[in-house]
């Protein structure tokens, strides 16, 4: 039986909290919208991801503390929603829709074009220069504008393999 043990944290590096100063104020404003602290969880996780690029176990513990939840609870929520990164990703994160409506319009070729142009080679892997991570996602809700692609927060419609190299060049 191979066993993985949950050991207590080493905690040698100092942790810089996300929710301090202006960010804490921002959270306060969000908390005012809901009758429970727990409801601010998804917004709080977005704040963490925007600030740090991903959400670590330590971040989850901080969010838990700020909202009066347990770290395990927060982790259960983080792992449910696929847009939250649980490990660092490339500087630019590319999401290519390949669900059927886009699939029949050549979406898989678009995904491959991104892998080639960015040097990321494999879906989910980060390119050697650390700049790109490309993944396939499910329906992005722009099926009539196949193939839609999210590059970070930019929603780009009607991407074809031919347009990909130029698109990639635009992002430094």
């Amino acid at each position: 039986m191979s066993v993985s043990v949950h050991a207590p944290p080493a905690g040698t590096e100092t942790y810089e909290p996300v929710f301090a100063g202006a960010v804490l104020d921002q959270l306060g404003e969000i908390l005012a919208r809901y009758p429970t602290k727990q409801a601010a969880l998804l917004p709080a996780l977005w704040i963490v991801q925007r600030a740090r690029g991903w959400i670590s176990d330590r971040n989850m513990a901080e969010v838990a503390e700020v909202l009066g939840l347990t770290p395990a609870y927060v982790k259960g929520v983080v792992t449910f929603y696929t847009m939250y990164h649980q490990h660092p990703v490339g500087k630019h994160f590319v999401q290519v829709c390949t669900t059927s409506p886009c699939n029949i319009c050549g979406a898989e070729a678009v995904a491959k074009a991104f892998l080639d142009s960015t040097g990321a080679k494999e879906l989910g892997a980060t390119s050697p220069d650390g700049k790109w991570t490309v993944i396939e996602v499910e329906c992005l809700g722009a099926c009539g504008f196949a193939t839609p692609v999210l590059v970070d927060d930019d929603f780009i419609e009607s991407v074809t393999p031919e347009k990909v190299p130029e698109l990639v060049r635009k992002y430094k």
Partner: protein
Amino acid sequence: MGYPQKPHARETVVLSKYFGDADARTYKGWIKRGGYEMLAQALTMEPAKIIDIVKESGLRGRGGAGFPTGLKWSFMPKEKKKPHYLCVNADESEPGTFKDREIMRWTPHALLEGSAIAAHAIQAEVVYIYIRGEFTEPWTYMERALAEATAAKVFGGIKIYLHRGAGAYICGEETALMNSIEGKRGNPRIKPPFPAAAGVFGMPTTINNVETLAAVPHILKQGAAWYKGLSLSSPKSTGTKLFSVCGHVQRPGNYEVTMGFPLKDLLYELCGGMQAGRTLKACIPGGSSVPILSREETEGCLLDYEGVVEKGSMLGSGGVIVFDDSTDMVYQIMRLARFYAHESCAQCTQCREGTAWTTKILERILAGQGKMADLDLLLDLSENMTGKTICVLSDSCAAPVVSGIKKFRSEFEEYIAGRRRAVMVA
């Protein structure tokens, strides 16, 4: 609408009137176009009166379920004892559907106005608009519009907040949406209790789709009789519907037509028909969760709730996915099964394990390792996955599988018999 093209002559342009008109996004622009007049009026009306009007109009939920909207609103407690909530379902993730996105991008104020009127009708002080995380562009426009309208104090005492999703199709299910707002995993809830009795935060709640709410100001303005009159076939299906047509047509896009419009005309006339040299093979009329229609069924289908049921499918969200004769139906059905397997929340055994197994069986068939018994196995699995779970994601996975095997059996048999080359499945 055919946006970005101009509306086709046979469209009934109501919700899509300002698609492509950047000025309509602004508060001033919206006011210039008569916006917020109906909200101002509604705020002076009795909530029950508004509910009656919407009931009379025959408006039905445009998210997929088609439940009569006025009736849904009437489930809310008449006597206000606890806080009431309105949740707006802008989680649009049903494959083939992309209409709510357009409403939010081009007419964000229309949604805000419709939401505020609905909130008043159900005596809700708080509105949460749940926008899927991937809709970064609609979010931006909604955020701006909300800020402008709030500053202009048009909402009376009603508070409207945007809430961002984070990548989960299942959060489009109304009870899962509520759980997601509450800061939980997006798990659908068992019913009872129903949202109108105990919804978000345990309080009486109504959940409505974006397109449904966008129709409300129009109904108030032009009257229930007008809306009811917009009906080409079944009197139980009224008003207009934005059909999101995608896949193998010349002009994919959103088209707003009167209920009962012939699907054949939508595809061949408004959308310009198939690509050069191609013929229609299959069509899914209501987003991927409804049965696939054969060519014959498609060409004979009228687009309203009853008309599509008559052909053996459902109107659903109105996401029309068109497959021409170049399509590998087995591959696309596998890809749909994989979608559902990815999105399953994991609560119900049939969905959690069944969607994954269904996908695996289809992958094996595509890889040239299928057996004839696999088809019976798929049908048996689909039967076990239908009508036995908390929500219908499980049933939705079964729908394309069952209809696909029924209507395109020969394609499956080609793979199984080794007459079709195995494909690499990603």
